């Protein structure tokens, strides 16, 4: 499989459009079962965790309002955060795109003289393809989150925001550990079984040596408090604490939309995130740090503020609400399309419903894959319902579909541009226009209905050409002998007819 980070230009034709990739996933029985099992497990748990709080709706509204306010004054809060982090002993760097972020982090690691870094699971670094960039510079990045470890050892791609190895079941994980751990460090224990506790133990032993010797760590952050300059990492395993505490240098790559105004605002997000994400009242470990602390934790702290398309999304009045996202992955877990397509079909660090609205905004809709993502949804709305910051994902999907088929004004890497409709929609556009014309002329509609009804005995049961997409798996409806409007006219007389 080829990894295609957001920051890299997508090689034309390298990534199949979503429908083709998803179609392949639907044929993979193991993948289907792994995803069904995992997503259904977490769905019920999330619902129970949320139901414990009688004020969930109010928390959700407050979360959305705080994020919206921050986004509306993002320049102010970024500058405030920068000043606070700097005052607390941190160094702040700004990266307009993936290449700049890669260059900054690579330089910072090189300056330490180290060739190895440990990493906390971070969507931002995955988005910019940081591990690959570091590898090209001769620096090895060790992923320390259990699921990221599984992905890294298996030379695989992440397929879920919270649980990047969700597509793997316990037996597959055991095989990956047995086969690949030795190449990266301490081998898997002899006789390793597929008991989750044993697998976790194997990961503990494998990574402990890395934690104890690491001099540089790279993380993301869940929140950046502008008022105080505090960074927050929410995690479960303790690998985050290890990376944030033990090394001498810490580099945190943080998307500019992660900033929140005030310390107090954490009271909202620390209630929304764990329950939406792992369905827990509170996740096992949350680390908060402000700059550097004498004698405790890294002596050097670098914050890399990452744009990489976020300001392009911010420029879209409908799409900007996607930047509220706190990466909980609740939308993935309830999505019937994600459940059947799997995360890889989305071709980005961000799979599922949030990926379908985020990736085309961060990367644009120029490639076939990116143009197909807004259509990777039946618009059922389950994602919006569970989103803890009330991102109206279906609304943005439709907005992005409009961008694909109608083109229009967009912002690309900070520059306003007018894009043309995507290729490959000409026949559809003609059909939509024809349908609209017909619907705008009821007499034509009636004539068409009559034609369909009168020829109904001649209709094939299965269609050829594009219609096969329907009739391969579904019978066609039987066409009635007369339409409703014919019946009405016949039985209710001429009154009220057009």
């Amino acid at each position: 499989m080829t990894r295609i980070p957001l920051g890299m230009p997508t090689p034309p034709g390298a990534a199949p459009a979503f429908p083709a990739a998803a179609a392949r996933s639907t044929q993979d029985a193991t993948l289907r079962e792994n995803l069904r099992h995992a997503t259904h497990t977490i769905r019920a748990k999330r619902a129970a965790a949320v139901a414990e709080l009688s004020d969930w709706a109010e928390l959700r509204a407050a979360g959305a309002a705080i994020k919206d306010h921050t986004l509306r004054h993002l320049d102010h809060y970024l500058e405030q955060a920068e000043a606070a982090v700097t005052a607390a002993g941190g160094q702040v760097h700004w990266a307009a795109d993936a290449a700049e972020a890669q260059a900054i982090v690579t330089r910072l690691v090189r300056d330490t003289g180290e060739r190895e870094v440990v990493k906390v699971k971070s969507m931002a670094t995955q988005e910019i393809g940081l591990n690959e960039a570091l590898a090209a510079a001769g620096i090895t990045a060790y992923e320390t989150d259990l699921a990221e470890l599984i992905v890294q050892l298996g030379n695989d791609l992440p397929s879920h925001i919270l649980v990047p190895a969700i597509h793997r079941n316990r037996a597959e994980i055991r095989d990956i550990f047995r086969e690949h751990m030795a190449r990266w460090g301490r081998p898997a224990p002899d006789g390793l079984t597929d008991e989750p506790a044993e697998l976790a133990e194997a990961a503990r032993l494998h990574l402990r040596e890395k934690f104890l010797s690491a001099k540089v760590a790279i993380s993301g952050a869940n929140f950046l408090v502008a008022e105080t300059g505090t960074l927050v990492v929410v995690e479960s395993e303790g690998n985050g604490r290890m990376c944030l505490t033990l090394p001498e240098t810490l580099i945190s790559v943080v998307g500019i939309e992660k900033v929140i105004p005030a310390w107090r605002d954490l009271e909202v997000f620390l209630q929304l995130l764990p329950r939406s994400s792992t369905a827990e009242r509170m996740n096992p470990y949350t680390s908060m740090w402000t700059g550097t602390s004498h004698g405790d934790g890294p002596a050097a702290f670098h914050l890399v503020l990452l744009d990489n398309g976020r300001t392009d999304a911010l420029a879209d009045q409908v799409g900007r609400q996607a930047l509220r996202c706190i990466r909980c992955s609740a939308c993935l877990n309830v999505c019937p399309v994600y459940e059947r397509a799997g995360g890889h079909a989305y071709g980005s660090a961000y799979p599922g419903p949030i990926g379908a609205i985020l990736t085309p905004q961060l990367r644009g809709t120029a490639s076939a894959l990116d143009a197909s993502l807004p259509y990777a949804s039946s618009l059922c709305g389950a994602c919006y319902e569970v989103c803890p910051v009330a991102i109206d994902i279906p609304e943005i999907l439709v907005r992005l579909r409009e961008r694909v088929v109608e083109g229009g004004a967009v912002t690309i890497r900070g520059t306003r541009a007018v894009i043309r409709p995507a290729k490959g929609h000409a026949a559809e556009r003609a059909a939509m226009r024809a349908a609209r014309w017909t619907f705008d002329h009821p007499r034509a509609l009636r004539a068409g209905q009559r034609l369909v009804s009168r020829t109904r005995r001649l209709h094939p049961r299965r269609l050829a050409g594009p219609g096969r997409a329907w009739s391969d798996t579904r019978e066609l409806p039987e066409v009635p002998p007369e339409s409703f409007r014919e019946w009405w006219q016949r039985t209710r007389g001429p009154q009220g007819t057009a």
Partner: protein
Amino acid sequence: MVAADPGPAGDGMSSRGRVLGRVRRALADVRAAEAAADTAMAAGPGTGAGPAAEAEAAPPAGHAGQGDAAQDYAKRDYAVRDYLRVHGSRTAPQRVALLAENLADYRAHVHHAHEAGLPAVIARLLTERGAHRVAVPHGLPGDWLSAVTAERVPDSADLTARELDAVDSVVTGCAVAIAETGTIVLDTGPGQGRRHLTLVPDHHLCVVRVPEQVVDALPQALELLAPQHPLTWISGPSATSDIELNRVEGVHGPRTLDVVLVTVDEPPTG
């Protein structure tokens, strides 16, 4: 300091300037709507503030510059906070009972002790654990370990993580505990130690003074904590949901978390 990351050759603009410039251009519609609302406000009361006022009230007329406007906005509350500060009302014993229940629900081992009996409880738990070496943070009340026979490893500036890896247990206090979520927060204050102290050993024994260190809910805890100190929020032992989205306890952090809820003995009366 703010590191100077030079922009791509020749364009003379820093990445910082480029990103902030993009942000400001992206928000042109927001600023325009605010300006319109501003004008409407300045025109006098009752004119209606227009669509921009839906999300937040307009800043006072006559403000200077965008940064000031944003600061004016930030001074008033920008979100309706009609969520609960506490979910339900509890007496102090109920609060402590809920903390114990939620700690146990996430697989922490909960123990109760009176102040006078605390050293014995700590000693017993360390013995049961088979701890030979125990890490001790600065400022741990002197008598807590008075009954402990294991070797004490005091925290010090040159105590390394590798040395801590050879320590069996660590005993600490905490800054605050949250009943509704079963969470203990450490702020590196006296008796809590530097962050790695409670991270590397596989067994963490944490003493919570009840009821005074226990709050009902998360918002109350945030008010008591100072972000200037590194904070570690702990809700049960290390865990993962990474295998089939099922929770399994015990990965990198301490796999065993003992929490001793200690009550201050009643002062003798009469």
